């Protein structure tokens, strides 16, 4: 027993010392403390690290330009490992121990579903930059995101393709034994119905199929102007190759699963004419995006991706709100002031013009805020994406 008491006493002392040190260094460093919880290790680390890089780049720029009304931003970064439990722990630490003014993260929608209710209950803004699932922002009015969902992207992809390529009727092909491709199909179906686009035939395939020619031959006989394809690249690329072999040359309209540069390799020789929508594109030559790409490449010696761009923009969006907040020193009051200022922010950054859109929860009451942003629609030609306006 004595021994246990001794150990407990030592660890208490250690925690106290660490807390004291933390407070001391923070007081000297920065005035606005923002919590970041992203997956910096584990399976989702490739996304989480891009996101962190985007945040750090934005904060560096903001602080170099004088900060927020003279106050510098300090990031407190936690690794939530892409796990629900860790995301909850990280949020609790950032909210109660680090006393952050607002939170960014977590990386995955699953984690957001678990951890965001804690932020909502603590009345602190949580801002997701990569959560695209349904039912995140319906958690409550303190939940914000600037990530664009597939339900937002697909209607725009179809509309743009229909206008530019003069598409009047489409065939649909999707994988019916995969949650992601099936949900992509549901979103496509809704968008096609909303736009009153006739569907000539709907065909399916299963994971691991090697031959899609039966479906494609049938599709060809219905003479569509385009094929709407909800597939992962593993099946999507062979589908494009086999379609071209059958003389089926109409464009493909793909979902998020087809939005990868690997299509140029896996469907080599048959990769032209694929339409995809995305919140960000490296080919988008706006001044804001060029500035971001140059600065990011200089700082990290690698090209940015969509996740870095969305995080970078999110930090600027939050900063716009913080500029309008008069900090009182009362943490609870200041956190509520951020929540009040954020919805009105309008910003044009690396991903283009952005504003928030209020969403309703299941009972129809107003809840959190989704992204209101036009995705970028591109087509494949040669080895590149070309942006279509």
């Amino acid at each position: 027993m004595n021994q246990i008491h001794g150990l407990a006493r030592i660890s208490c002392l250690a925690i106290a010392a660490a807390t004291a040190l933390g407070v001391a260094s923070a007081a000297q460093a920065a005035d606005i403390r923002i919590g970041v919880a992203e997956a910096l290790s584990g399976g989702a680390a490739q996304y989480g690290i891009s996101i962190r890089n985007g945040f750090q780049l934005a904060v560096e720029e903001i602080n170099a330009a004088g900060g927020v009304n003279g106050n510098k931003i300090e990031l407190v970064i936690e690794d939530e490992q892409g796990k629900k439990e860790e995301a909850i722990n990280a949020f609790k630490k950032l909210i109660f121990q680090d006393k952050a003014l607002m939170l960014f993260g977590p990386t995955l929608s699953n984690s957001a579903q678990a951890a965001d209710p804690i932020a909502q209950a603590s009345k602190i803004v949580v801002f997701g930059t990569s959560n695209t699932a349904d039912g995140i922002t319906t958690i409550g009015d303190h939940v914000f995101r600037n990530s664009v969902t597939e339900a937002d992207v697909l209607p725009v992809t179809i509309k743009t393709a229909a206008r530019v390529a003069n598409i009047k009727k489409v065939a649909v092909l999707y994988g019916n034994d995969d949650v992601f491709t099936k949900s992509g199909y549901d979103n496509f179906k809704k968008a096609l119905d909303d736009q009153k686009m006739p569907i000539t035939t709907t065909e399916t395939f299963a994971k691991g199929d090697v031959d899609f020619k039966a479906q494609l031959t049938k599709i060809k006989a219905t003479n569509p102007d385009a094929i709407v394809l909800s597939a992962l690249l593993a099946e999507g690329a062979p589908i494009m190759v086999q379609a071209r072999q059958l003389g089926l040359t109409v464009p493909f309209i793909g979902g998020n699963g087809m939005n990868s540069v690997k299509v140029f390799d896996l469907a080599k020789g048959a990769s032209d004419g694929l339409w995809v929508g995305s919140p960000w594109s490296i080919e988008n030559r706006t001044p804001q995006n060029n500035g971001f790409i140059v600065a990011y490449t200089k700082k990290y010696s690698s090209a940015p991706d969509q996740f870095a761009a969305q995080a970078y923009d999110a930090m600027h969006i939050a900063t716009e709100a913080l500029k309008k907040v008069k900090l009182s020193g009362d943490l609870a009051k200041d956190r509520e002031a951020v929540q009040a200022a954020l919805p009105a922010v309008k910003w044009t950054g690396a991903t283009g013009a952005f504003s928030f859109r209020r969403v309703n929860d299941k009972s129809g009451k107003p809840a959190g805020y989704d992204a209101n942003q036009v995705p970028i629609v591109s087509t494949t030609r040669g080895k590149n994406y070309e942006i279509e306006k």
Partner: protein
Amino acid sequence: MLEQQLFNALSLGCVYALFALGFTLVFGVLGVINLSQGAIFMVGAYAALTAITQLHAPLWAAILFAFVFSGTVGLLIDRIVLKPLRKRDAPHLIPMIATIGLGLAMNSLVQGLFGAENQRFPSEILPQDSLQIAGVSVTVLELGIILVSFVLMTVLMITLKKTQLGRALRAIAESPKAARLLGINVEGLFMLTSFAAAGLGGISGVLIGLYSNALFPLMGQPMLHKGIAVIILGGMGDIRGAMLAGLFLGFAEVLSVAYIGSNMRDAVAFGLLFLVLLVRPKGLFGSVQERKV
């Protein structure tokens, strides 16, 4: 459209038959359902891919390399795993379980070496364009797969029926003990069969990998499942049966997509398979009393 669908069915059927030929050979001679055949199929495809991308081998050499490489893997499996089990007279479920484990190990190994993402053969290696024959789009590869599967079936059947080697193999299939008493080198022929069957699995991996344009560590899994259905339908261990049953599955799948709907494809194809087995429980060519080679 009907002509195109019939041709699609023929080439898909030959894809299934190609895989099933090696699979059924092992069962016919060794009496083992080798569930690592799907992984061997995948190993063959990756062996050829490595030969083409790293050693810049032409396609014929890559196929030969895949045959030898997968064959050697099959031979090692027989020597290291199946032979000790035979020696101990293990019940026939034991080698089946052992080969499941071997398949998993090979999948993980290839995933570790090459990564889980899809790869493909360089497109320059084969003409990708289609020929138009009587209004039907046909690729060189499809013709190749159809030709190879029929040639292999013929060669295997002639070998088994007409040659001294075939007689010895059939004797082993009847009873390894009796064959040994007759002076047949039973272990030697087991090795030969394991090598040839795995080698054929490797070749089908290359051809089907070229066909689907998608190489990934688990590519053998769906093929293995369909392959099991095909060799059961054909009559376990029967070469001609494997060929016919492969074609049967191909036609059933394609025609159900064409006339019923792709959502119902597997239900229709495997429903038909079930009906055939109700009428002929030993498969199309399986006989009730004896096991055939």
